[in-house]
């Protein structure tokens, strides 16, 4: 019965729940879903992280390559982050090159990491103007049930935190490169950016913030994906994005920042515990 009702009257179905102060999956408005994190489970990559936020599943794997630095920035390495939304993660995505939405997600995730300045690209340079590391961070979504950016950032950061770079010796005369994989040094990660998504649902004259929305909730609130993404890193904001959905008043904005701050603390703790356990 409920399933039929959902199909025939999608808006009313959702409104009925909201008017009873509960979300269709039984959560409170500001409750986020359970998060599961696993690091270094993919041995074929240099570092990896698997994140599950509710149903949303995201895998990040890092591959290392060597290249000559750009002529404009001879002292920096490269960090290449791409998000792939596979056709298998949702019926919305078709096989083929990345859709516009996938490109937007890639761009937001890259921006968050770059803006938080958690990786100093200068650390990735091995020899000035000659040799630098290229970090290919590929994030793939296996199951998309909303809150995609949160999961992507979490997977990426936890993989970066576990990444170790092998020792490289470069002979400037012969241009000979030798890599010693037995000696590895960890990559410096400065801070821990965490993103929190919200959907904003227009309910009569006010708007209602839904923390960590599911794919269904994101659809109901309009727009493409989450409406508001707040990203904290070490007590600083490193990205607030608001697109589509209902408009946002000042009070809601403050509340969103507060909720995001609390969730950030929790996620930071989760990532640190997970990495500690792994290294033991």
């Amino acid at each position, binding site marked *: *019965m*409920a399933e039929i009702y959902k199909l025939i009257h999608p808006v009313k179905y959702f409104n*009925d729940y909201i*008017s*009873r102060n509960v979300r269709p999956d039984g959560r409170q408005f500001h409750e986020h879903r359970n998060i599961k994190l696993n690091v270094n489970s*993919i*041995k*074929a*990559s240099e570092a*990896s992280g698997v994140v599950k936020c509710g*149903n949303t*599943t995201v*895998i990040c*794997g*890092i*591959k*290392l*390559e*060597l*290249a*000559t630095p*750009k002529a404009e920035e001879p002292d920096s390495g*490269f960090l*290449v*982050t*791409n998000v*792939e939304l*596979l*056709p*298998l*993660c*949702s*019926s919305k995505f078709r*096989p083929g*090159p*990345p859709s516009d939405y*996938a*490109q937007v997600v*890639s761009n937001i995730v*890259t921006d968050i990491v770059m803006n938080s300045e958690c990786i100093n690209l200068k650390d990735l340079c091995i020899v000035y103007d000659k040799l630098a590391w*290229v970090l*290919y961070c*590929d994030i*793939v979504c*296996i*199951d*998309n*049930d909303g809150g995609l950016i949160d999961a992507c950032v979490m997977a990426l950061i936890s993989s970066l935190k576990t990444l170790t770079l*092998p020792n*490289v010796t470069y002979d400037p005369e012969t241009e000979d*490169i*030798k*890599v*010693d*994989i037995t000696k590895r040094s960890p990559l410096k990660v400065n801070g821990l950016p965490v993103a929190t998504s919200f959907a904003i649902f227009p309910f009569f004259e006010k708007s209602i913030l839904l923390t960590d929305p599911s*794919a269904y909730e994101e659809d109901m609130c309009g727009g493409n994906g989450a409406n508001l993404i707040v990203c904290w890193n070490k007590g600083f904001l490193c990205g607030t994005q608001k697109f589509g959905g209902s408009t946002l008043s000042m009070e809601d904005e403050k509340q969103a920042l507060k909720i995001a701050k609390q969730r950030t603390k929790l996620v930071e703790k989760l990532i640190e515990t997970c990495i500690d356990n792994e290294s033991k």
Partner: protein
Amino acid sequence: MPLDFRRFNGPEDSVSYTRFTQDFLKSYDELHNELINKSNLRKDGRALDEARSMFARTDMISQAKGSAYVELKKTKVVCSVFDPREIPHQNEFSQLGQIFCEVKFAPFSCSRQRRPAAPDAEDKSLSVALRQALEPAVCRHLFPNYQIDVFVYIIEHDGACLAAAINAAGLALADAAVPMYDIITASSIAIIGDKMFVDPTEEEEHVAMISPDSENVNHGIITMSMLSELKQVSDFIQIGSMDTDCVIKAMDILEKECAKLIPNIQQVLVMNVVQNIEQQKKLEEEAKEREAALNAKLEEWKTLLNAG
């Protein structure tokens, strides 16, 4: 290669650092001899004819109609199946339903090098192989002019990935309640000289694919998928060169291996059904509760309306 505008690209001259490690330049003999130790065991401690234990589960992906995850030690494969949909841009009516398969490797799935993001020849050949394997297993006459999408993603590749993909796709199709004739299972074998490696790892596959210097040496990989109950082979793929006796021998082994997987798959499927029934019960109970609450709300409104 043209530059991909839809992704962030790294520098063009970047190469994997493994090129500069000492392990990279190993001769064929070295690689060959490394595979088996003195007590005739493989690197991971298995005997030659011992397959890896398979872990499988269904219901991985919430958004898909049916999904499955298969793990053979390090090889990890996930598959999802979507509702049948009308074939787009179709001119003729097709009597049989079609199966659209796409196999994709994760960019970080292979330990040797980073996979390019765009599908390459290997991805495409695996997609075709998977489709050919699944077509005889599915009752395609039941959904004419429709197509079922089967997407397989290889998260980590450590050999026998086509076999794992077929197993996963079979499970996912069953989970999606697509009518099938039989449980489909697949297994693969790598042949190097006179030795046969059942359920090979990526290293073993790699050596099997290199042509040895001396001629007339059997080498290659065979993957075979079976409908065991019907005693039918649904797909047989052989890469490399080997003599007939060798192929016949390999087929016998593969047939047994495929049959061995059946109880495992059956168990997963039964568990899936049991779980679904339990879930359904739970949902029904919850729905009743919700309906009661909604009815109460309705009554409330009615009284409000009547009151004026």
